[in-house]
């Protein structure tokens, strides 16, 4: 949007541009006020998500071990200065694995949400805008897919496509597609009726331009919220798959795999399963709280109100 300001600048003077900038700043402030206006939980969650992202990005800097590095002689030890959270059954540093697990979980969550978003939004837009038999067919197919629980769908697909990160993310992504399609479809159906779409048609705008210039941008808030929530759900499904032994293969430090593996030691060394479980829980919860906040902050209905 900044380009726009620069491009059109000559029809406005410097002062107006400054004003516009100020207004946008206000908008951003408003956005954050709403985002955080939901109490301490929202703030903590936002900070947590940020921390998780930072940890995921900078994990090699946070620890001197690699997630695969073993010290067999030092297996299943409790917390110590060398190993902040202790070691697992192969003497790998638990803290390191959890840190790398953040990278792994977030990337699988993001990757699969991207898949779901791309496929789902494309289908939803097409079905909603063109409607008719095509739209109906797409929606019925989505109904069909929705009647199979995502975990089971992912399970079946994982058996076919194997457990590489790429295929797992695609599989989880596919199982999230109907959610996107349904919401986007509904949105497009209602947006399509708005007068500004009619107006765009009246000034001679083509179908695709309308689709991408008017309908898609107006779906953005929903998409962003769904995406944020989707990341959490994807991570949850991934961990479920891992728990069933079908997801990502060990020794990848996925939190789900770590819980699955650590569960064997729940009586003797509970920390092995508890820590990744707690992290998983925190990440999913904070993602969903942030998603909620985003929903409110991006809701045009709430603009100016509240």
């Amino acid at each position, binding site marked *: *949007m900044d380009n*726009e*300001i620069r*491009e*059109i600048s*000559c*029809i*406005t003077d410097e002062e*107006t*541009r400054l*004003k*516009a900038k100020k*207004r946008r700043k206000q908008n951003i402030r408003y956005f954050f006020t709403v985002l955080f206006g939901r109490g301490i939980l929202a703030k903590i969650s936002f900070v947590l998500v940020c921390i998780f992202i930072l940890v995921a990005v900078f994990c090699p800097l946070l620890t001197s071990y690699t997630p695969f590095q073993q010290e067999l002689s030092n297996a299943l030890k409790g917390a110590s200065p060398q190993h902040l959270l202790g070691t697992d059954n192969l003497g790998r540093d638990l803290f390191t694995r959890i840190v790398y697990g953040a990278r792994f979980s977030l990337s699988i969550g993001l990757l699969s949400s991207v898949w779901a978003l791309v496929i789902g939004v494309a289908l939803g837009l097409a079905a909603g805008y063109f409607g008719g038999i095509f739209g109906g067919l797409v929606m019925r197919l989505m109904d069909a897919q929705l009647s199979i629980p995502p975990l089971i769908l992912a399970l079946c697909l994982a058996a076919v496509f194997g457990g590489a990160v790429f295929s797992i993310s695609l599989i989880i992504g596919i199982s999230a597609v109907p959610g996107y399609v349904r919401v986007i479809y509904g949105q497009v159906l209602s947006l399509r009726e*708005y*007068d*500004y779409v*009619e*107006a*765009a*048609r*009246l*000034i*001679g*705008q083509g179908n695709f331009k309308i689709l991408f*210039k*008017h309908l898609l*941008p*107006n779906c*953005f808030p929903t998409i962003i919220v769904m995406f944020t929530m989707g990341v959490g759900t994807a991570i949850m499904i991934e961990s479920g798959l891992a728990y069933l032994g079908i997801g990502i293969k060990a020794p990848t430090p996925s939190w789900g795999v770590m819980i699955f593996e650590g569960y064997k030691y729940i009586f003797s060394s509970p920390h092995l399963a508890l820590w990744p479980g707690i992290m998983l829980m925190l990440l999913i919860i904070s993602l969903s709280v942030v998603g909620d906040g985003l929903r409110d902050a991006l809701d*045009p209905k709430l*603009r*100016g109100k509240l």
Partner: protein
Amino acid sequence: MNEKKPLLQVEGLKMYFPLKKGLLSRTYCHVKAVDDVSFEVREGETFGIVGESGCGKTTTGKCILRIHDPTDGKIIYNGRDISKLPKSKFKENRRELQLIFQDPYESLDPRQSVCSILEEAIVCDRKFHTKEEIKKRMRELLSLVELHQDIALRYPHELSGGQRQRLGVARALACNPKLIVCDEPVSALDVSIQAQIINLFRRLQEELGLTYIFVAHDLAVVRHIAGRIGVMYLGRMVEILDSDDLFENSRHPYTKALLSAVPTTDYYREKRRERIVLEGEVPSPINAPPGCPFHPRCRYATDICRTTMPELLDRGRNHLVACYHDGPCES
């Protein structure tokens, strides 16, 4: 002004929306939203359409703009029947016919800033290519609708209702239209803003030689802006007359009832005025009564009204009425 050639002639326009039912979406009846409407609009003139909610005002406008494909009838624009032109042929005329919407909020994309809304409308023309030209045109448009250029960087939700409606007008003007259908453009606005916009419409018409079809349900507003007024009831034109004649010479009982129902701010007259309060409500256009659509609420209704639809006949002085009891209104 009567000497000008007609820019638009609507002849026997019909728009039936099918109502579907059941599993196979069988059409079981039609909403006769517009049923055999004819009128003509001269260049530079404003033709007003009034009527109660659901009487087909918007539908008429949308048929003229080819948003709906009319079921039947001719729409002759500039001497050419555009009602049955294929979409590709109609493209040439597309931008000459514009619409201004009732709801100034819904008609603006909330994610587009003012300048991008205008830019989109300007660029579509393919007449303006360089950035400079576009900007020049944009400035022109903004000043035409009396908007300050500051506004260019704002978003619709940062504008007031009046400003939004002006922006809508500017967008329509960007297409260099000949005919603008204004669909209740002031109904959602406050009186003071409404007056501003009405003035704007009038000024633009003078400056640019525009032709309007002005749809409204407020007789006072329509009378103020339109040269000729068509009164619609249940999908049909019941009376067409010059606006100057409206108050004194209207002959259709429905028009009279409408006039009397409009409260005015003329205190002393208002206190004295006898009102015709119509009984009942507008019937649904799905099963319109046979004969004259107005007969169930008309106090002059006779047997013929109940069976045969009266024709819209010229009663002189460009005054067309569709009533068997043309103008016996004593009271």
